[in-house]
């Protein structure tokens, strides 16, 4: 039996550890605070496991190289923060339509523009959902502890491979730089999912033909299955087309392969929800403050709990709807001016009162602040 490995780690380090454990063998990036450690640690680790690291000339080049590497068969990731995340958006859409697995980490900082490079924020939640143009669905995950960063990064790779789609891993400056003790899983304990390979001969292979779960089988470049990859709307062979029926089928399949598998994709945590009459919805570092606030409020006799989505997108609609039906009140606390509030309102407003509390000054939201908001609001 292998011994348990306990390590004191930073969030950004846990991200690389998780990625390598998930099979990441390619990283392309461009330095930006507060994500830079992810590139630095990848640069040190990857060549030691036979992987490749490259510092590209900018963030557009980084995501493009990552997509190229994934096409050539490597599990690939890039990491950035706000300004760089903006630059990556066009190519994220390319990975969506061409169905190329990859992981994009965004360690959020204050924005817009250069904003507050070293301060935490959660202002890119909607950008993660709708940053690239056109109709699409997206998977975005958001851990709130260092251990969760490790696990969620593995999950990000697994979902990317399983659904052949880009997966966004959102963090914030606090999570990225915080140090916590992490008990790493033993070898063999980690569940790894790899892209489905073709089950037919090259002559019979249709690279964009959906299988039962709506996800096509993926041949890597160089394996003898020659086909065309394009960002244009395409048919089952990957050939560009303007056919309206094919276009609608493709766009709907790309959305539905995610939306129809929401139960497999969604992950969340509940805290003190057993007898709760009120709930706070929070994610990332804010969820940590909310937990402390709930302990204080519980001591004062309030029946309140936390609902923490780890899968931010697609949002846990079923679970949120149930909260809407059962809770007297839903409060959304986040380091922005009400981005996830919009989503919670959309789902819950017809059942119950939904209220938001936000902060955009570069400071964490403190437990006491949340307590006051709950008691006064």
């Amino acid at each position, binding site marked *: 039996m292998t011994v348990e490995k306990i390590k004191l780690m930073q969030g950004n380090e846990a991200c690389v550890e998780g990625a390598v454990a998930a099979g990441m063998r*390619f990283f*392309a990036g461009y330095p930006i605070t507060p994500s830079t450690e992810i590139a630095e640690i990848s640069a040190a680790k990857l*060549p*030691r496991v*036979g992987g*490749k690291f*490259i510092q*590209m*000339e*900018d963030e*557009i*080049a*980084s995501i*493009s*190289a*990552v*997509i*190229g*590497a*994934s*096409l*050539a*068969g*490597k599990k*690939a990731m890039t990491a950035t923060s706000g300004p760089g995340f903006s630059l990556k958006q*066009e*190519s994220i859409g*390319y990975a969506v339509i061409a169905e190329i697995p990859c992981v994009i980490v965004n360690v959020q900082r204050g924005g817009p523009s250069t904003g507050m490079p070293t301060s935490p924020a959660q202002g890119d939640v909607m950008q993660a959902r709708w940053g690239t143009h056109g109709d699409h669905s997206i998977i975005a995950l958001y851990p709130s502890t260092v251990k969760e960063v490790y696990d969620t990064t593995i999950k990000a790779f697994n979902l990317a491979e399983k659904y052949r789609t880009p997966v966004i891993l959102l963090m914030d400056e606090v999570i990225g730089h915080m140090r916590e003790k992490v008990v790493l899983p033993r070898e063999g304990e980690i569940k790894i999912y790899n892209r489905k390979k073709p089950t037919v001969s090259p002559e019979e292979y249709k690279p964009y033909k959906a299988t039962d779960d709506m996800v096509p089988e993926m041949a*890597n*470049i*160089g*394996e*003898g299955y*020659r*086909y*065309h*990859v*394009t*960002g*244009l709307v395409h048919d089952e062979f990957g*050939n*560009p087309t303007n056919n309206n029926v094919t276009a609608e089928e493709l766009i709907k399949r790309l959305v539905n392969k995610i939306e129809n598998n929401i139960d497999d994709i969604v992950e969340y945590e509940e805290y003190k929800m057993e007898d709760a009459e009120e709930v706070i919805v929070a994610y990332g570092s804010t969820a940590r403050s909310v937990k402390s606030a709930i302990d204080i409020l519980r001591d004062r006799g309030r029946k309140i709990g936390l609902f923490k989505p780890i899968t931010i997108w697609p949002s846990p609609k079923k679970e949120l709807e149930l909260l809407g039906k059962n809770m007297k009140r839903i409060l959304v606390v986040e380091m922005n001016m009400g981005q996830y509030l919009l989503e919670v309102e959309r789902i819950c407003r017809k059942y119950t009162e939904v209220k938001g509390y936000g902060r955009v000054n570069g400071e964490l939201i403190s437990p006491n602040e949340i307590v006051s908001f709950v008691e006064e609001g």
Partner: protein
Amino acid sequence: MTNYLIEKYYRTERLPHIWCPGCGNGIVLKAIVKAIDNLNLNQNEVCVVSGIGCSSRATGYLDFNTVHTTHGRALAFATGIKFANPKLHVVVITGDGDCAAIGGNHLIHAARRNIDITTIVFNNNIYGMTGGQYSPTTPTGDKGTTAPYGNIDPNFDLCELAKSAGATYVSRSTVYGVNMITKQVEEGIKNKGFSFIEILTTCPTYYGRKNKKGNAAEMIKQLNEITINVNAYNNLPQEKRENKIVIGELYKDIREEYTEKYDRLIKSF
């Protein structure tokens, strides 16, 4: 021969192509395919990557591993592909706008790394796909739909740029001389490093019409008239060199290739 090349290397079910009658792109494409055939490369190990533009549509017609990427980023995608699997022969097809405007920075850095990618620029001096706007290679004074009074921008010498940035094979040819294109593409692919091949081609629909260059055949003839082979050029007295565009193999160097260098690092552990 032509039929054999088409049968073997084109996705015939995808033809006819979208290019205008008289467009030079078809000539360049055939010359590229001939080079690959001459080198006897395994089609499964060839990956052709393109950006966005009329020229970049070429990948859709070719029976290799083909990737039609985003505007300007073909070299960045290609870098990921080559670095991930150095066994592949990676060829990039790009337009003058794709390569030198939106993609200019990627060109500089791919050349600097000397990564083994053969970049073939279809330079038609104009943005074809979007309808004839001026590009970084539109000669100063020439017209485009966004330069109705004549272009005031100085135009780029792409080969000089690639050479200064670190390319280890640099050449130029025109659609007037198909055999020269084929030879250069062969040499480019054989070079273990970053190869840059600029091919002067024709867009009769926009560049030609806007600048009263005549029909496609006349435009191709003009390409012959304005260019001179590098050897002949070197023998010309200084005063006769002006306004001549030099074709042929312009620069060669030997420098360690990027993916090989990284593989050495991996092996050192």
